[in-house]
Structure formats: C-alpha cells, structure tokens
C-alpha cells in the first residue's frame, strides 16, 4: 500500500523551524537599518507542492527586535531580545520560500514592524521610559551632545553619526533621555577634526569601521544635566549585500516579489 502522504507541516516541526531560520537570516542579512530581529513564533505555514520533490512554502513569522544593531558583527544567537520593559518592537513577516529536497531558498519577504503599545508597558511598568520619535528635539540634542562629547575626549578616529537607532524618554522620577545611535569612523583623528571637520569623510567600504553608541542625559531638579556616553567601534568587517528594511517601527517595507513562474 503506498505510504500515506506526510501530514501538513506543523509550526513547530523541525523542517518549519529550518525554513524560518533561513528566512530570518535572509531578512537580517539584507537589512541595513535599525536592529537585528530574532524569531519569536511561527504563526502559520502553508506548503504548496510545486513538482517532484519541491514545494513552495509560505510562512507567517512573528519576530522580536534584539539589542544588536544591524551593523554589529555579533551573531544573532548571541543577541539579546529586547525585553518587554525596554519597550519591545515586534516584526510581522510573510515570507515565501522554495524547498527542493532539504534545501530552502528565499523567494520573497514582506515585513512590518511596530512597537508595543505604550499602554501595555505603563500597565506593567508605570515609570518605564517609552519609545519616542527619532526626530524629537530632545533626542537630536542628546545625540549631538553625546557625539561631540565622545569626539572631544577620544584619541582615536573622529566619529560621524550614521543613524539614530532608538530613543526613549523617562519623565518620572527624573527626566532622562536615552538614545542609541550607529556611528562610523572617518579618515581624521579627533584632533585633526578640530582644525577642519569638513575634511573628515567616512572611510571607504574596504576600510569601514562602524560602531554603536548609547547615551543618556539626566536633567535634575535644579536643571543641571548629567551626560553619559558609551561608544564602541566594531572594527573593520566585510560589507553585506543591500536589502529590504525591517526595523523602523511602524513602517512597512516589502521585497520586490519575484513570483515563481
């Protein structure tokens, strides 16, 4: 009696997890803004037989933002998923893969990310700082002050701002602005930049040296400000291919869908 066809793939089957891993690696590998995302849940899977030993697989994935900026060389498995209290950001992705035998290849992906609702956070953590717009005046002021502070004290290369990754503001019990931003080394030392900052350009791709900074400005009752900055450079890495974007909360990007013939 011919063997019964295999039952439908379950969302927690090893094969589904393998396909999801390929998809998440593809999405992170082709993104160059924001943060890396990790798999949180496989929402659904649909398999459409395509021919002898090959199928089209549609996955609905639920991802969560990690604390690793997309330019960080840290492997995804070592990236911490941002906690609920840090105001998590979720990514919802629909992906389409081709499976031939045990080999998966990506055909298309479409992702939308959104931050958790402020009500949810405040319900659990009334004093937690909440995500704020990246072009908020206080955020821009804090990033500028932090980068200037770092560049005025470092003996290394002069750093330029690449992008602001995220920003939060806490109002109680103290007024604190938290910012995270990506930076890149330039061809100047910080000292040279003092003389002619216009001449300081980002290093070419084959010498690029990216980094990441976190900073806070706490404003006390008497309006004095306490600035703290921490910048770490990653060292030179091989640039990755271009890609769709994922982790701007609230913005949807889609991969140009190459439908299968």
């Amino acid at each position: 009696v011919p063997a019964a066809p295999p039952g439908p793939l379950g969302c927690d089957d090893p094969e589904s997890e393998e396909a999801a891993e390929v998809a998440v690696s593809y999405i992170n590998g082709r993104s160059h803004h924001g943060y890396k995302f990790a798999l949180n849940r496989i929402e659904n899977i649909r398999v459409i037989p395509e021919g002898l030993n090959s199928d089209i697989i549609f996955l609905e994935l639920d991802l969560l933002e990690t604390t690793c900026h997309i330019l960080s060389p840290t492997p995804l498995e070592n990236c911490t998923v941002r906690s609920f209290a840090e105001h998590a950001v979720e990514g919802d992705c629909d992906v389409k893969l081709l499976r031939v035998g045990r080999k998966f290849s990506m055909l298309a992906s479409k992702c939308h990310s959104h931050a958790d609702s402020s009500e949810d956070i405040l319900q659990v953590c009334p004093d937690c700082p909440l995500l704020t717009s990246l072009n908020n005046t206080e955020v821009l002021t804090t990033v500028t002050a932090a980068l200037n502070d770092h560049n005025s004290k470092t003996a290394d290369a002069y750093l330029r701002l690449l992008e602001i990754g995220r920003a939060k503001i806490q109002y109680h019990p103290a007024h604190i602005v938290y910012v995270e931003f990506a930076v890149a080394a330039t061809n100047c030392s910080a000292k040279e930049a003092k003389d002619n900052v216009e001449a300081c350009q980002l290093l070419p791709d084959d010498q690029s040296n990216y980094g990441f900074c976190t900073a806070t400005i706490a404003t006390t009752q008497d309006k004095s400000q306490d600035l703290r900055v921490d910048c770490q450079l990653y060292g030179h890495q091989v640039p990755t291919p271009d890609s769709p974007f994922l982790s701007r909360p609230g913005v949807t990007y889609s991969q140009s869908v190459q439908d299968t013939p």
Partner: protein
Amino acid sequence: SVAKRAVAEVAQHDKVPRPVGFLPPPPPPCPGKIRHFRI
C-alpha cells in the same frame, strides 16, 4: 400497547470504558510555540 421503556441511567460501572491507549487530540499544528514573549 407499546410503552416507551424509560432508559435507565447508565450506571457508572456500565459506562463505555475508554479504549486502551486513548490519546488526547494532538495540539493544533499552528501557531507554534512562543520563544520569548507575546506583545
């Protein structure tokens, strides 16, 4: 005359025993497990 016989309440011990090896239905195939937390 035909009288409908009241069906006696099935006594506990007469209840149809479950077949040996009865397994609860498998969990639905999707959505899958949550690896971190739900937002």
